[in-house]
């Protein structure tokens, strides 16, 4: 423990002094030095609901503002996923790993010309911990006590965590908002009304590379270059290169595609089923298709194992590991990949998403599509088949349950249909039930009225971000919700792993701990994973410096993207 701490600290100190020696502006490396001018135009689904980062709860809002208008102290690199400095130029932590000092970048200005200082960081934390402002960041920053934070000087802040935390750097990557604008409304109790979509866009003030100038509901958001931005290229030219960044708001995926074909947009996220066809037209259309590999999003089926909500005998089947493994063998991943993704997806076996190389354990147990194996496992568990070919349990009850998912989602509906067919083939009676999304989630998170649900989650890099799912007391511990105590031995072990995991500071040791968790989940299959889509983007050839990744997307380095005329 001690060794690992000093190791990390040394790294941090090197970083601190190393950067201190550089000029204040932050140099962003890129393949080529760009030219100024031009614009990046993309299309996005759905309108933002607010421009206030602490009221924003959905990606259609956060995609607009985070990273473009508002920036955190620390962020992750879009390619390597390693932490890198943003508004904090460097940081260090105490011997016991609880006290963190952040040295803020000097000479960073808000869009309205006021300088960014430690006061803004302190103010942002005040907002996060204000019980009147329900936001996405607070829950992740209660351990369960809040962080103690104080200003040391104009450019230094100090956070004291209740314990040493491996996730500290992720936890402090909250976007900083300007005190000089929002403090007054906050004191008047109007913070929750601030920066709604009816605010004139130029009044949304951040430190980011872009400044909002236009918002037309259901049409577009236009941002212009921030001339005083703190990043520079290798030659010291201020970034970003492009003059304007436009986000069109499309009603659906097709509209986005048409906009790209019509050259209204110049970057487009390509669906797997479109890749070949778009590749055929790449030359005529003057674009290149980039592959980003598998995404962080997941797709799985979960059985409700909670006897408080599921009556016997159903719950006994669902609690039976062999039953779940039999179902896992009945997931026809290849057909799903072909039908929904045009062959452009990969099977998922571990709870860690495929692109997460740092934590992924490659050799977990797998369950290839094999109905014979399913039959064998079911027989082993004590299930029998009647003369009519229907499946009966050890007490002679016919295996019959409802499989739900949310309507209008092609992947999930297709998965539901295929799985239901295969399970019917095994002799079960499966009632498929596509339903309203909100309703489905209400059932899922309350535990009531469901047997099996197909749904997906989007993961992050650090497994601890999923502790709400994996720990027994978590609000998203779907298969056994609303329990304070672990119900099985393996769940107890998973709880432990997460408790330990978040306090280990040495990266390599930490990864090993999470390997064990992946093996447990792959063996017990509380969530039966399906497939992970591969992601692709098409960008016009004149856009340079693109480094497309599943984690960062096509715009993580928007600062250095430039248009070659």
């Amino acid at each position, binding site marked *: 423990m001690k060794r690992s701490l000093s190791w990390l600290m040394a790294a941090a100190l090197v970083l601190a002094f190393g950067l201190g020696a550089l000029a204040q502006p932050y140099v962003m490396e890129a393949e080529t030095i760009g030219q100024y001018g031009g614009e990046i135009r993309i299309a996005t689904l759905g309108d933002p*609901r607010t421009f206030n980062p602490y009221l924003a709860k959905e990606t259609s809002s956060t995609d607009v503002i985070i990273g473009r208008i508002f920036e955190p102290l620390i962020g992750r690199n879009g390619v390597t996923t390693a932490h890198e400095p943003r508004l904090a130029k460097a940081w260090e932590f105490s011997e016991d790993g609880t006290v963190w000092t952040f040295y803020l970048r000097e000479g960073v200005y808000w869009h309205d010309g006021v300088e960014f200082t430690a006061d803004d960081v302190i103010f942002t934390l005040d907002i996060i911990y204000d019980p009147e402002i329900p936001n996405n960041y607070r829950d992740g920053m209660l351990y369960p006590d809040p962080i103690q934070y104080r200003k040391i000087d104009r450019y230094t802040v100090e956070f004291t965590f209740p314990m040493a935390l491996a996730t500290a750097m992720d936890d402090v990557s909250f976007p900083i908002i300007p005190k000089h604008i929002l403090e007054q409304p906050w004191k008047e109790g109007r913070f929750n009304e601030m920066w709604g979509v*009816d605010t004139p866009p130029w009044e949304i003030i951040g430190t980011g590379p872009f400044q909002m100038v236009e918002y*037309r509901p259901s049409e577009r958001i236009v941002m212009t270059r921030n001339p005083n931005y703190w990043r520079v290229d290798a030659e010291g030219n201020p970034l970003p290169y492009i003059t304007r960044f436009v986000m069109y708001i499309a009603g659906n995926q097709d509209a986005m595609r048409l906009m790209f074909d019509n050259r209204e947009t110049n970057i487009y996220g390509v669906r797997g089923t479109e890749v070949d066809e778009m590749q055929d037209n790449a030359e005529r259309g003057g674009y290149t298709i980039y592959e980003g590999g598998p995404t962080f999003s997941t797709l799985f089926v979960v059985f409700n194992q909670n006897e408080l909500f599921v009556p016997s005998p159903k719950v006994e089947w669902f609690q039976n590991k062999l039953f779940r493994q039999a179902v896992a063998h009945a997931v026809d991943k290849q057909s799903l990949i072909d039908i929904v993704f045009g062959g452009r997806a990969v099977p998922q076996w571990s709870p860690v998403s495929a692109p997460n190389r740092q934590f992924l354990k490659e050799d977990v147990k797998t369950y290839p599509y094999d109905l014979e194996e399913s039959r064998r496992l079911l027989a082993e568990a004590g299930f029998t088949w009647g003369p009519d070919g229907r499946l009966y349990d050890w007490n002679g009850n016919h295996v019959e349950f409802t499989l739900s998912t949310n309507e209008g989602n092609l992947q999930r509906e297709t998965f539901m249909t295929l799985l239901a067919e295969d399970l019917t083939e095994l002799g079960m009676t499966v009632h498929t039930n596509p339903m309203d999304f909100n309703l489905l989630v209400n059932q899922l998170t309350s535990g009531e009225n469901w047997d099996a649900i197909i749904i997906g989650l989007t993961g992050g890099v650090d497994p601890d971000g999923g502790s709400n799912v994996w720990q027994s007391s978590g*609000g*998203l511990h779907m298969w056994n919700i609303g329990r304070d105590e672990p119900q099985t031995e393996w769940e107890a072990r998973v709880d432990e792993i997460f408790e330990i995991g978040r306090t280990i500071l040495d990266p390599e040791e930490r990864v090993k701990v999470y390997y064990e968790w992946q093996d447990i989940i792959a063996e017990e299959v509380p969530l039966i994973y399906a497939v992970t889509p591969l992601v692709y983007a098409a960008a016009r050839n004149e856009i340079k410096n693109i480094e497309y990744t599943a984690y960062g997307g096509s715009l993580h380095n928007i600062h250095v993207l430039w248009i070659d005329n």
Partner: protein
Amino acid sequence: MHAFILRRLLNMIPLLIGISFLSFSIMYMAPGDFLGELRLNPQISAETIEMMRAQYGLDKPFIVQYWLWFKEAFPMPGNWKINLGRSFQYHTPVTTLIGFYAFNTFLLSLTSAVLSWLIAIPIGIYAARKQYSFGDKVLTTLAFMGVSIPNFFLALIILYFVVRWELPLPIGGATSLGYDELNLWQKIVDRAHHLIIPTLVLTTGSTAGLMRYMRSNLLDTLRQDYVRTARAKGLSERVVVYKHALRNAINPLITFFGFEIASLLSGATLTEFVTSYPGLGRLLYGGLRANDYHLVLGGLMVGSVMLMLGNLIADIMLAWADPRIRYQ
């Protein structure tokens, strides 16, 4: 007449309260709440979700929720604004959101209404005067087809051909990038360009219906005794049709004019949806899908007011056009 208008306007108040109560009950019965997306977010605890529900008053009994909404939605002593409540998703007054989209929808509906009247009336007159001619038969058949094709299907077909033939028409949106820098004339052209597809869809159905109605009204009038008298007096056919019959044939259309006003904001939902046009329908449909029921409620209220106003205007115009009608 003034008294009549005043009374009708006053009548709208209890009616609106009734509608708001009915609509609120409907929305209240809708299962689930708008927090689904948040519940699935691993970063957010169940306690935070509960806190948000409390903040929006979702944990209160029905009648309290209604009163909380009512108090905020309508003018009250101390707060004379009408804001139709606050949207759950947007944290802004519903009226603001509706304001964003209302102009687009209004423009679309008005364009197609004006177009369909301009096309349908002359065609209807032509078809009636040349009853059973080849032209009449073609037009009547077309009209029948026009009213029979569902808007959303027509929109799909039009989109299909636009994509197939790579027609240079914008798909979705109401304005182009850089719209604000255009001069007035360019702005009009830009708007018109974006209106082509949705207008085509909307106009087809309404033109067809209106034309059939115009034709049959005129035929009906031409069979009346006074027209026979006029003809017998030796008046030219032109005078008979345009001076005598037409006036009376158009009167019943005024009721439809009322409908037209009523549907200015609510008649284009499906068309907007299919053609990605940024209108009220899309806003409200989105609100419905997200369980943002203050937003949906606001839409229902605005739609209802338009409907009532439309009927009132139609009645007033009817009285003005037809001296036999008197209101007390």
